[in-house]
């Protein structure tokens, strides 16, 4: 029960952040006469070193973060599931693709994004690809293992003997069993995308400069962090709130994923068997 409350709270906070960012996002005009104004009623988050309204920029950055997170998690879950389905086809060159996915996993997303940025400059599509690629490999491999385990189950056998095609079996009967894992992965990728995007933008290799990003706002606020703490405080709080609520959702999903294995009464039977073995 507790885990469900956690997930609900996390989703509520993310929905509130989304509403906040949709309401406040807009044009951020440079106005050097209004540099580094402290928070007030008209400027709830204050202004930055170029006189831009921080609440507008924070809202825009949150929106971009969420967009990238959603795109990355959708892309990696969809591509990972599709790959898992392809692996289960006969005569599919899966050993090649599995070692390719191992190879892709050997470069962490941030390094991959930095490398891609060195090729032809930073950009949002490259960011999404760099974040998704290692996760696609991971999801494909694990879902394939799960599909392989499911293939020998009785209800799949029954479906097959009724003449159902591979695609139908996969979509109707295997996908529901993969759902807990896939939804957990979706949230995990979302979280990793939000963190990677803000980190890369902080380093200057993420979202390109004029468009707002939580990481870029913090990088701009860093030199004045002691004289104008609000310039870093509010964007950082929003970023932390976003990632923390995603983490809470992921934790509660993983808890419910694990508790579905069922422990309890089975243990006693196990003891009886084991002690019988010991005596013989």
């Amino acid at each position: 029960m507790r885990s469900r409350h956690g997930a609900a709270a996390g989703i509520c906070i993310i929905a509130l952040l989304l509403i906040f960012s949709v309401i406040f996002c807009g044009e951020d005009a440079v106005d050097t006469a209004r540099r580094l104004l402290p928070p007030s009623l008209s400027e709830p988050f204050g202004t930055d070193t170029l006189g831009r309204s921080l609440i507008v920029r924070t809202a825009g950055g949150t929106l971009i973060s969420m967009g990238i997170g959603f795109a990355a998690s959708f892309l990696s879950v969809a591509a990972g599931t599709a790959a898992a389905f392809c692996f289960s086809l006969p005569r599919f060159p899966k050993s090649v693709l599995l070692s390719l996915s191992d190879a892709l996993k050997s470069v962490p997303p941030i390094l991959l994004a930095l490398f891609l940025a060195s090729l032809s400059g930073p950009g949002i599509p490259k960011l999404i690809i760099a974040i998704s690629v290692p996760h696609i490999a991971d999801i494909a491999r694990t879902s394939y293992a799960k599909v392989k385990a499911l293939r020998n189950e009785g209800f799949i056998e029954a479906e097959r003997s009724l003449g159902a095609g591979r695609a139908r079996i996969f979509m109707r009967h295997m996908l529901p069993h993969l759902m807990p894992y896939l939804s957990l992965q979706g949230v995990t990728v979302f979280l990793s995308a939000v963190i990677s995007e803000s980190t890369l933008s902080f380093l200057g290799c993420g979202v390109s400069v004029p468009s707002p990003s939580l990481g870029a706002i913090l990088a701009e606020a860093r030199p004045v962090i002691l004289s104008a703490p609000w310039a870093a405080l509010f964007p950082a709080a929003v970023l932390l709130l976003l990632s923390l609520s995603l983490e809470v959702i992921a934790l509660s999903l993983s808890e419910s994923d694990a508790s579905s294995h069922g422990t309890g009464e089975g243990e006693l039977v196990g003891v009886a068997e084991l002690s019988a073995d010991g005596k013989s």
Partner: protein
Amino acid sequence: MAITSDQLIFPGRVSFDTLSCIILAMKRIVRRIIAAFISLLLVSLAVFALVSFSSGDSSAHVLAEDASPEAVQAYREAMGLDDPFFLRYLGFMRSFFSGRWGESVSGAAVSDLILHRIPVTLSLTLVSLVLSLLIALPLSLVPLKRRSASGMAVTAFAALSAACPLFLSSLLLIIVFSVLLGLFPVAGYIPLSRSLSGWLSSVFLPSLSLAILHSSLYIMVLRRALKEGMESKPALVYASFGMRRNAIARSAAARPALPVMTMLTAETLASSLAGSAVVETVFALPGAGSLLVDAALSRDVTLAGTIVLLCAVMTIIFSLLSEAVVFLLDPRERRGK
């Protein structure tokens, strides 16, 4: 009949055919090494394809903006950019493995640049590994019961540190420990050869921020493994024979958790370059990670490609090593079950 704890810890110590075990091990090792080579081949091919795909850009960056087409063509021929793809790949791999990594955009040798920066990244990686184990191991051992307050506090710590982006925690540590308390330098690196205390104080905060992030992973995995171990059938048997809780935890939970911890350690070590890229930039340390960030900002494809390829090689080696260690640690693996 009295049962000693030794019999309980090793209930199924059967003698098995040593020769067949060795053959099995050799087979697995050979298969893993082949797989590692295929991975390496694919990564290097991808990196090389991307680097050479964009190296048209490098002539645009190196030569003057109004360079004539002939000058561009001469540059491309001089750099060997007009050879067939596969030939250039072979040349690239040969020079990669013989340590000739070419020149960066600024004209310095890539190998010199990277080798100068390795000590910083290495110190960060090792100190952060020690710190993260120092944080994670004691915290993982606090009560594993579902509703205990201390257990929930540990979970909350792990969740918070996993959700906090690395650059944010680094900034926070700088503000609290360097600026407000003045305990550590704000930025900069002092080599170990110059002074031990200076090295430690320049490396401590960056390593701590890495360690906080990594320890969250260790705590989550280790706590789950320990909990599963304590709820496992062997643990119940030990308990029913009256074994002490600590002894049960040692044999039924801690030992089975070792393989997972080994693999996790190898993974964090292999991906440490990603973390140190962030931390080195925030703390202005001259390491390999910040070198990659500089390379990305200055569009230095050769430098960035070499660092990424080195990282991939390291990851592949570490995963091989960790599998070897797991093989030694886990008797089930040895027997091929």
